[in-house]
């Protein structure tokens, strides 16, 4: 059960014991972390589970595929470390990971 920390835009921090094999989005929703909407339910189709992955964890969280890249492309607040959390599969390699949430999901 890797520990993952999600920090809301207002600075409030939530550390969850995440379940391996599930997406970061699903883990966050299941544990009631605010700030992730996930309108499409995990289909990489809406862009509303956007997170900013802290530099140290960028490599181990994997790379965005073409569809995720396209969906991130319609976010006005995209940064180099932007990911859709429904596309990050949780594993022990992510133990200790920190991600930040945007001001709004849209």
């Amino acid at each position, binding site marked *: 059960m890797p520990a993952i920390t999600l920090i809301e835009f207002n600075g409030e921090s939530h550390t969850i014991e995440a379940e391996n094999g599930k997406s970061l989005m699903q883990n966050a929703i299941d544990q009631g972390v605010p700030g992730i*909407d*996930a*309108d*499409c*339910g995990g*289909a*990489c*189709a*809406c*862009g*509303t589970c956007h997170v900013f992955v802290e530099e140290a964890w960028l490599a181990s969280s994997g790379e965005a595929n073409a*569809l995720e890249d*396209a*969906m991130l*492309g*319609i976010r*006005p*607040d995209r940064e180099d470390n932007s990911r859709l959390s429904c596309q990050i599969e949780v594993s022990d390699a992510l133990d200790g990971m920190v991600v930040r949430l*945007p*001001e*709004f999901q*849209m």
Partner: protein
Amino acid sequence: MNQAAELPDVSSLSLDQIDVSDPRLYELDAWRPYFARLREEAPVHYQADSAFGPFWSVTRFDDIVAVDTNHQAFSSEPIILIGDLDEDIPLEMFIAMDPPKHDLQRRAVQAVVAPKNLAEMESLIRSRVVAVLDALPVGETFDWVERVSINLTTQMLATLFDFPFEARHKLTYWSDIAAGSPELTGGDVSHEERMSGMMECLETFTRIWHERKGRQDSFDLISLLQRDPNTADMVDRPMEFLGNIALLIVGGNDTTRNSATGGVLALNQNPAEYDKLRANPGLIPGMVSEIIRWQTPLAHMRRTASADIEFKGQKIRKGDKVIMWYVSGNRDESAIDNADEFIIDRANPRHHISFGFGVHRCMGNRLAEMQLRILWEEIMLRFRQVEVVGEPERVSSNFVRGYKTLPVRLHPL
């Protein structure tokens, strides 16, 4: 409702006779059983002979998501309406472009609805909602569409464009005609009227563009287009300029307008839900999503197959029209529990298809939700009920699910 008699009972039709492009289905609010049958028996359905030519219908939620997110196989070019591009006025707009060109043009304007701007807009929207609601006649029958829905959304649109406020009714008019011709969507706007209205829109916005050029301190849609290198010369390509203006007008107007009306209708048809709302106005944010689902202000989006493809067992050929019926996906029981019911405290209200999915997902979705949330917050501070006192008059269109009129009467707290 005599016309309803002209529409056949869907159970009396063979599958190949079912034509969900018939605008009367929407004007007469008779579409539900048609789509229920398609979802059940022919979820990817071919209609060989409609007024809009042959087309495929995709009617289940998950299948629509699959088409919407596969822009390689299902292109948005040349047009996202079921009708064909009008050769006399071949509008180009980013909603009808594929990546990468789509991305560049959308990026130029989406900052207008970025979070920072939304937060700044909230107090302006609230002050306008308050002014509109406080001016309504209590105890008299009046038209909610004209006095509230059109009034509020047109004010917002004028602000987004920094359009001359006193001429803002023009925006409503252009919005109504842009997708309102019989050939495009089964509307009742003649080809000539659409042509002349769209040309007036082009002239007006071209003038505004030149007047505004060089301003650095403004964040309206025209200024954003001017400042982005990818769109800075858009005015030199009139059909692209006009197309994108029309897109932003329709996108920011028809949709929120009809949800602002649809919410009143839905609550009146479901009095137990209205009671829930009165007991707990904290339900408003979730209710707003439910209203947008229930209304589905845009019934469809079209894609065009880029190559031959097999999809859900059907052989779709290159060039075929593929219509994603959002109005049907939002009633799909396999994706949404009790999908035909209006339930303001649903468990997962944002899981609806009204905004589309994939790279063309609605750009103004959070602005739309914010406008509707503020509207209902302020309504609930003033009125025990916005009572519907007559039948709504609906728009003839297989695209815009809209209302021409809705007679109401206000009951103060």
